[in-house]
C-alpha cells in the first residue's frame, strides 16, 4: 500500500502555504534494474488539492517529476483550522488521500 503523505499547511495572512511530500518511486520506464530489465512506468498522474472540500489545485503530472515528489502551493482565502486534503492517483490506479488542518502562523 501507498505510504502516507507528509503535508504541512501554514497560514500566511489569508493564504495557506501548503507543502506536500509524497512517497512514490516515480519510475520513468527508462531505467534498467540490475538484470538489465527495464523497470516499468509507475508514476503519479494526478494530484488534487482540496480546501474544505473544494478543489483548488488539479495537477497533472508525467514521469518527469522527481522520486518522492514535493509539491508546494498557495491556497487563497484560508483560515486556521480549514481542511486541506490531498489525493494522488498513479498510472496503476493506486490512490492515497491525506488531510490536515491549516495551522495558524507561528
Amino acid at each position, binding site marked *: 500500500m501507498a505510504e502516507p503523505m507528509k503535508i504541512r499547511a501554514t497560514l500566511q495572512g489569508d493564504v495557506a502555504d501548503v507543502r506536500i511530500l509524497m512517497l512514490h518511486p516515480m519510475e*520513468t520506464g527508462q*531505467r*534498467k534494474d540490475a538484470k538489465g530489465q527495464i523497470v516499468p512506468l509507475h508514476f503519479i498522474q494526478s494530484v488534487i488539492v482540496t*480546501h474544505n472540500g473544494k478543489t483548488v489545485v*488539479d*495537477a497533472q503530472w508525467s514521469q*518527469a517529476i*522527481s522520486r518522492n515528489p514535493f509539491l508546494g*502551493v498557495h491556497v487563497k482565502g484560508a483560515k486556521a483550522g480549514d481542511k486541506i486534503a490531498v489525493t494522488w492517483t498513479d498510472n496503476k490506479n493506486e490512490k492515497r488521500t491525506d488531510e490536515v488542518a491549516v495551522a495558524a502562523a507561528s
Partner: protein
Amino acid sequence: MNVLRRSFLKLTAGAGALTAAAAAGLVASGQAWAAAWNKTGFEAKAYADALKSLGATNLVQSKDIVITAPDIAENGAVVPVAVTSKIPNTQSISILAENNPFPLAATFDLSGGSEGYVSTRIKMGKTSNVHIVVKADGKLYTAAKEIKVTIGGCG
C-alpha cells in the same frame, strides 16, 4: 517489453488524431483542460508537439512569470523548480523541459482558488531550457530559463 512498447506507440498514434479536435475545444472552453489527463501532451516526444497539446500557438513572452530554479543542477534527478505568476487570473501553469525524452513535465490547474504559485521537483535528462506556460484569461504566456545539468536524471 517490446510488445508493450508497440501497443504504447499505437495508442499514442491514435490519440494524435484526437488532439487536433480536442485542442480547438480546449482553447474555446478553457474548462475542459482539467477534465482528463493530457495523454497526447505527456507522451509527446518533441517539444513542439507538447506545446501544441497545450493549445499553445500564440505564446506571449512575459516578465511576470518568475522561475526560481538553480542555474546549475548537479543532479538531474532532482531539480527544484518554483514558478510564480503575477499575471492576474492565472488559471494554469505548465512546466516543460525542452530536451527531456517527454518534454511536458506537469500541468497545474489553479483556477479553483490558488495563487499563481507552484513549487515542485522535476527530473532532467540533460542541460535544457525549462519553459513555463501560463494560462490566464484564456491567453497563454511563457517564460524560460536554462538549467545546466551535470548528471542526467532519466536513466
